[in-house]
């Protein structure tokens, strides 16, 4: 990440300086303000979901959810702490329901639980790949945009989308198994 970010940013800034030197500072400052607004927006989203998660946790709902996914979690992640397993189950359930906003805070909490060293562990890599290959059953944003722009049938992409995400998820999980071996 260090090398990628530095090289790409440096090259882009050099190109921008050659074309339009006066806009370099504006672009950088605008990006930082954009980060502030996004972070505040995320804060609101996290606020709702972390609050609801805490309630669900006190009701022992998370524990039951975690039991439902136990076999799957064992297969994918191996032996992880009970807390991490609960967060991972929450994350998986949110993804399946298409509530992507709720998936992020639970994934972050799980990562904080599993990662203790500088090198990403197998379970951390698995969680990241599962989330980054988009296990999302209903692409609601895309369908909303299609409907808004006057598509005849906004949902006719559902099936190809489902197959495509299934392919990427399966391949992603398989690749993690190839790279890191079976879960211990």
């Amino acid at each position: 990440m260090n090398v990628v970010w530095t090289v790409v940013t440096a090259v882009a800034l050099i190109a921008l300086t050659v074309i339009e030197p006066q806009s370099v500072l504006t672009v950088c400052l605008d990006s930082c303000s954009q980060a502030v607004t996004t972070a505040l927006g995320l804060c609101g989203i996290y606020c709702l979901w972390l609050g609801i998660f805490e309630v669900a946790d006190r009701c022992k709902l998370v524990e039951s959810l975690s039991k439902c996914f136990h076999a799957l979690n064992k297969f994918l992640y191996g032996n992880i702490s009970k807390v991490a397993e609960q967060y991972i189950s929450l994350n998986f359930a949110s993804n399946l329901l298409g509530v992507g906003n709720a998936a992020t805070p639970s994934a972050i909490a799980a990562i904080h639980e599993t990662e203790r060293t500088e090198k990403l562990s197998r379970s951390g890599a698995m969680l990241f790949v599962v989330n980054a290959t988009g296990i999302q059953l209903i692409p609601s944003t895309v369908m909303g945009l299609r409907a808004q722009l006057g598509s005849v049938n906004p949902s006719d992409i559902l099936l190809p989308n489902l197959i495509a995400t299934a392919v990427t998820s399966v391949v992603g999980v398989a690749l993690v198994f190839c790279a890191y071996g079976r879960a211990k």
Partner: protein
Amino acid sequence: MNYVVPLLLIAVLAVGLIKRVNVYDSFVLGARKSFDLSLTVFPYLAAIFIMVNALHASGLDVYVTKLLAPPFRLLGVPAEVVQLVLLRPFSGSGSLAILTDVYNNYGVDSYIGRCASVIMGSSETVFYVASVYFAGTKVRHTGWAIPIALLCNLLGAVTACLLCKIM
């Protein structure tokens, strides 16, 4: 689909009532953590946004898109959606803007429009997700995680274009 989130919220609150949990106190306790979490994420977001916006403002993204269009065509990905495939790992709002452009230029229900829809739906903002997830942890070496996710995104795009042709 519109009922999933409302029902979920109501169900959690209802179970809380039945089990006599202090719902109000628990909610406040959980919600308090959100500020720290977004503060941890914030500087990583700034770094990603600077990179993406600098790329876009300098026009380098268009140049790279043109450069990579031929190899993508070999994989069956039409040139019109290459920019979307390339930008998707970096920026959610940026790729949504490009998706809207594609819809407006080529039509929502055209082959290109449908391809772009499935690409958008089946891929993720890999670098953005990585920066958000690993923010605040000690993790510095992510190993195979990001290459695997990027490869899957590419595979998703190829599959999307193929599926839209036959479906």
